[in-house]
């Protein structure tokens, strides 16, 4: 009878984490930025049908990077979770915190018990009555959750783009300005010496959770509407 090779738990977890990180790093980034009237999401994504940013519930949205089939599955699960909760209790009882917990448990269980971790990173965002009540949760492949303030950058170049956004973002900016910061970061040159790219509206997927809208706050910005908002910042 042959014995399997011994692999230490540390090594096993490290291998899985490396695998997931590599998968996520291949994808394009998503930036999530708070502005005075809500939360804006932007990603370089030429597809009009395969979204990285989606509505979950009245005041809650979802953004993801990594493997499409895996985060799409989590997105659908999130919509089902939120709709069932709102149906059994009330619409106001659906919270981003509850959803982030459910996602964290799912990601964590898959990471420790299955042979392959999910190659995804998520943001669950909820707008409140004012900017101080907004919530931004960032979830990683191993199920860890972090509550972020102001902005989140995920995906391939997260650290580099995060530094660019950090240098310019501040609380209370209007939508056009935060979008300009996000889009500039997404188009910035990956290494020293290369040219920055100017991303056109057709290359971008942009959506907002708009506090001023009555019930369903999620809205996609496309075409002329997006071009106008981008032009407004100059």
């Amino acid at each position, binding site marked *: 009878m042959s014995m399997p090779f011994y692999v230490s738990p540390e090594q096993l977890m490290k291998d899985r984490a490396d695998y997931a990180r590599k998968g996520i790093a291949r994808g394009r980034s998503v930036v999530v930025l708070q502005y005075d009237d809500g939360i804006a999401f932007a990603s370089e994504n030429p597809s009009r049908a395969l979204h990285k940013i989606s509505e979950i519930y009245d005041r809650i949205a979802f953004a993801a990077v990594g493997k499409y089939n895996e985060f799409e599955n989590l997105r659908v*699960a999130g919509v089902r979770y939120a709709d*069932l*909760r709102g149906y059994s209790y009330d619409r106001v009882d659906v919270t981003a915190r509850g959803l982030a917990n459910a996602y964290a448990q*799912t990601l964590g269980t898959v990471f420790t018990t299955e042979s392959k971790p999910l190659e995804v990173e998520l943001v669950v965002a909820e707008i409140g009555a004012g900017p101080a009540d907004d919530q931004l949760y960032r979830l990683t492949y191993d199920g860890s959750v972090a509550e972020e303030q102001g902005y989140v950058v995920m995906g391939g170049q997260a650290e580099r783009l995060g530094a660019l956004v950090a240098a310019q973002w501040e609380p209370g900016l209007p939508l056009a300005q935060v979008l300009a910061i996000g889009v500039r970061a997404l188009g910035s040159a990956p290494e020293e010496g290369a040219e920055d790219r100017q991303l056109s509206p057709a290359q971008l997927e942009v959506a907002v959770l708009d506090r001023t809208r009555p019930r369903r706050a999620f809205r996609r910005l496309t075409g002329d509407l997006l071009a106008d908002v981008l032009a407004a910042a100059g």
Partner: protein
Amino acid sequence: MGPVPSSGRLPAAYTTPGSSSFAQFLAQAAPELLPGNRPTGGGDLGVPHGTTIVAVTFDGGIVMAGDRRATAGSMIASRHIEKVFPADEYSAIGIAGSAGLAIELVRLFQLELEHYEKIEGNLLSLDGKANRLATLLRGNLGLAMQGLAVVPLFGGYDLARAAGRIFSYDVTGGRYEETEHHAIGSGSVFARGSLKKRWRPGLDADGAVEVAVEALVDAADDDSATGGPDAGRRIYPVVATVSAAGYLRVPDTQLAAVSTRIDVERQVGDPRA
């Protein structure tokens, strides 16, 4: 809310791909929440019943109107119940029958449409919505056989045809498209008579609102279970237009003016004569 496995991970029903239907998901994740899955003893429970709903087409949309009365036997259970609701941005649903179940069915139907929209990223066609409602009704047949029937009236703006359309149903989930106008509920016989005389092609939205309110006034005249406009308490029917602009509720000020005009016309005799 369904069994939660020991790992805390979302159960398999949440992550099973393929279905965009909330009702189908509910049947797996929390079947006890589906209205059709509840056993009742049968017989007359004396629960509130909602009554008359009318729908009228006009050029570019529909008007749906419902009175505000719910009755339990000969008693008025409520004089301000609402029985006309937005199903989604481009459709409306009105309900007659057992009030508690009807409101639950409306909640489920509204969520069914929103759920589909969020998962698929686009709206269902108007025919698709009408068919989904028929399926939900079919699930209720057991309760209907025990005397807890719910009959909806559904109407909306068809974005593909750029026109308003109306659908009626029976308790078995039969779906029938109506032309011009329709009414359901205990006062529907009188409302339909009124609609036939007053509806004409080429109505605009305001004209259709008048025709619909007048039909409810006629229903309330002859049916004890239908409530007319109540100026004293400022309780007016729930009236909504659905057109390319979406679902819009007609404000009470406009309804007050319409019902006063109908009153005055009837006091001084018929001006059409």
